[in-house]
C-alpha cells in the first residue's frame, strides 16, 4: 500500500485576491512504506507547503492527498504521523520526559504506559539520562533529538520533518543525520524530509524529490542507490559525489529554465 499518494495537487494562497501566490502546481507523488524521501529545493519552491499538505496543516486548492488511503484530516485524527519542525518546539515548563510524553498524554494513554514509551524513545535518541532536565538546559542539537523522540512515541507510520536540522551547526548536523538513519532503520517508519541542502538530501534518502520555485513544482525525482547503512565512508565515496552533482545540475537546470 502507498503511504502518501498525491495527485495533481495545486496550492494557491490568497486565491482570487490581491497577493495571489501559486505555491504548488501539478504535484504528483507516491511514497512507499519504509521509504526515506526528501523534498529538496530553493526557498519558495513550496517544499514546506507540500509537507504541510501531507500533515493536514494546510489544504490543497485542487487535487487530492491521501495518507494511508485516508484524507489527511482523518490520518491526523488517527495519529498516523509524527511531526518535527525546524525549531524544536518544546514546552519550556515541561521536563524532557514530559515533553516526549505529550502526544500520548493528549491521546489519553495511561501515565505508566506513556512514561515507559517515552523512556524507550529517549533511549533511542540517546537522551535517557536527560529525562528530568528542562529543554532550556540542553543544546540545540539535543533539543531537536527530544523533538524527534516525541514524534516517534506513537511509532507513527509516517514521520514528517520540516528542515529539522536546518538550525544546527555542520558537525551536529552530520552526527544527527547518522542518528536519524539509525532510528529510521530501527523503526522502519516512512520519512518525508524537507531540506535545502543537497548533500543532506543525497546522504539520507532513497529518493530525492527535486523542486523548483515560481511556481513550485517537481522537476525530477532522483533515486539514490547508495547502500545502507550509510556512514562517513558514504560521504567520501565517488558514487555519492556523482549523485550530489546529478541533483545539483537538475536544480540548476530548472533555475535556468524558469528564467
Amino acid at each position, binding site marked *: 500500500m502507498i503511504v502518501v499518494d498525491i495527485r495533481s495537487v495545486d496550492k494557491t494562497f490568497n486565491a482570487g485576491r490581491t497577493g495571489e501566490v501559486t505555491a504548488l502546481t501539478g504535484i504528483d507523488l507516491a511514497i512507499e512504506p519504509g521509504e526515506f524521501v526528501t523534498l529538496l529545493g530553493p526557498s519558495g519552491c513550496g517544499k514546506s507547503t507540500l509537507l504541510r499538505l501531507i500533515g493536514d496543516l494546510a489544504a490543497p486548492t485542487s487535487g487530492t492527498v491521501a495518507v494511508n488511503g485516508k484524507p489527511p484530516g482523518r490520518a491526523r485524527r488517527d495519529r498516523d504521523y509524527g511531526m518535527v519542525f525546524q525549531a524544536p518546539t518544546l514546552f519550556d515548563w515541561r521536563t524532557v520526559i514530559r515533553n516526549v510524553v505529550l502526544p500520548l498524554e493528549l491521546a489519553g494513554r495511561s501515565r505508566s504506559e506513556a512514561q515507559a514509551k517515552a523512556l524507550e524513545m529517549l533511549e533511542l535518541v540517546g537522551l535517557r539520562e536527560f529525562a528530568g532536565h528542562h529543554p532550556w*538546559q540542553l543544546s540545540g542539537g539535543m533539543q531537536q533529538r527530544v523533538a524527534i523522540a516525541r514524534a516517534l512515541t506513537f511509532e507513527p507510520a509516517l514521520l514528517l520533518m520540516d528542515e529539522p536540522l*536546518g538550525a544546527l*551547526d555542520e558537525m551536529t548536523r552530520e552526527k544527527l543525520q547518522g542518528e536519524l538513519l539509525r532510528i529510521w532503520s530501527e523503526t522502519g517508519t516512512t520519512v518525508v524530509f524537507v531540506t535545502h541542502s543537497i548533500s543532506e538530501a543525497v546522504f539520507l534518502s532513497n529518493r530525492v524529490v527535486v523542486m523548483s520555485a515560481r511556481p513550485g513544482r517537481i522537476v525530477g525525482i532522483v533515486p539514490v542507490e547508495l547502500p545502507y547503512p550509510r556512514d562517513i565512508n558514504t560521504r567520501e565515496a565517488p558514487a555519492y559525489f556523482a549523485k550530489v552533482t546529478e541533483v545539483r545540475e537538475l536544480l540548476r537546470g530548472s533555475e535556468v529554465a524558469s528564467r
Partner: protein
Amino acid sequence: MTDPGFVAPRSRFSRPQGDRTRSWGGNRATRLVPPLLVAVGVLALWELTITVFQIQEFLLPKPSTIVSTLFAELGVILRAAAFTLRSVLGGLLLGAGAGFLVALTTSRFSYVTEASVPLAAAINSTPIVALAPIANQWFGITDPLSKIFVVAVIVFFPVMINVTKGLISVEPSQLELLRSYAASPRQVVFKARLPNALPYLFNGLKVAASLSVIAAVVAEYFGGPREALGVYISQQAALFHFAEAWAAIVVASAIGLALFGFVTLAERLVMLVMPWQVAFREGE
C-alpha cells in the same frame, strides 16, 4: 510598551543546575544590603534635617515621632488597616478573578480580543478611582462593597490585559504541533495557552497588588466608615495630627509591599513546579 499596565514577562528565573543561567553577583542576602543602607541613610537624613533646621513637626514629623505615634495609636490604626485590607482583598479577588475569566473567554474569539484589548488598555489609563463617589452613591458610603467595587474595577484591567496577551501569544509552531497530535480545543488551552499565560498573570497581579491599596485608600478619602485607613488619614490630617496621618500612611505602604511580596512569593513557588525560560534556539 504601548499598552499601559502591560509588562512583558521576564525570564529571570534561574536554576543553579541550569547550563545557561548566570548569577548576577552575590546571593540574595548580600543583594538586600545596598537598598537597606540607602533606606537607613534617607531616614537618618530626614531625622537630622528636621532637628538641625528646627522644622515644625506639624509640617513634617520626624521618623522617630512617626514610629512612636504608630505604637501609641497601634490599636486604632490596625483596626482601620484590617477594614481597609478586607476591601483590598475582596476587590483583588473579584477584580482579578473577573479579569482572568473575561480574558479566558474572549481569547477564544480573536475578533473579540482585537476589539476588547485596546478598549481595556484605554480604560486602564483613565483615573478609575474617580468612580469612588459614584460607588458611594450606589452601594452606600459605609458599605464595604462601595470600596470593594472600586478596587475590583481598577484591578480588573491590568489582569485582563496581561492574561489575554499571555493566552494569545503562544508560539504558532506550538499550536501546529498540538494540532498535528489532534489535541482538542480544551487541551490546547490547558497544555499551551494557560501555562504560557501564567507569567503574564503574575505580572498583572503585581501591578494589581500595588494599585489595589491605592484604590482602597483613595476611595475611602471620599467617605467611609470611621474605621478605615483612608478615612483615618484624611481626618487626622484635617485635625493637623500629621504624625498620626503619617503613621497610617506607613501602614498602608506596608500593606501594599506585603501584597506585592506575597504575589512574588506565589510566583516563585509556581516557578519551582513549572519553570519557564524563553527557549534558547540556535540560528534564531
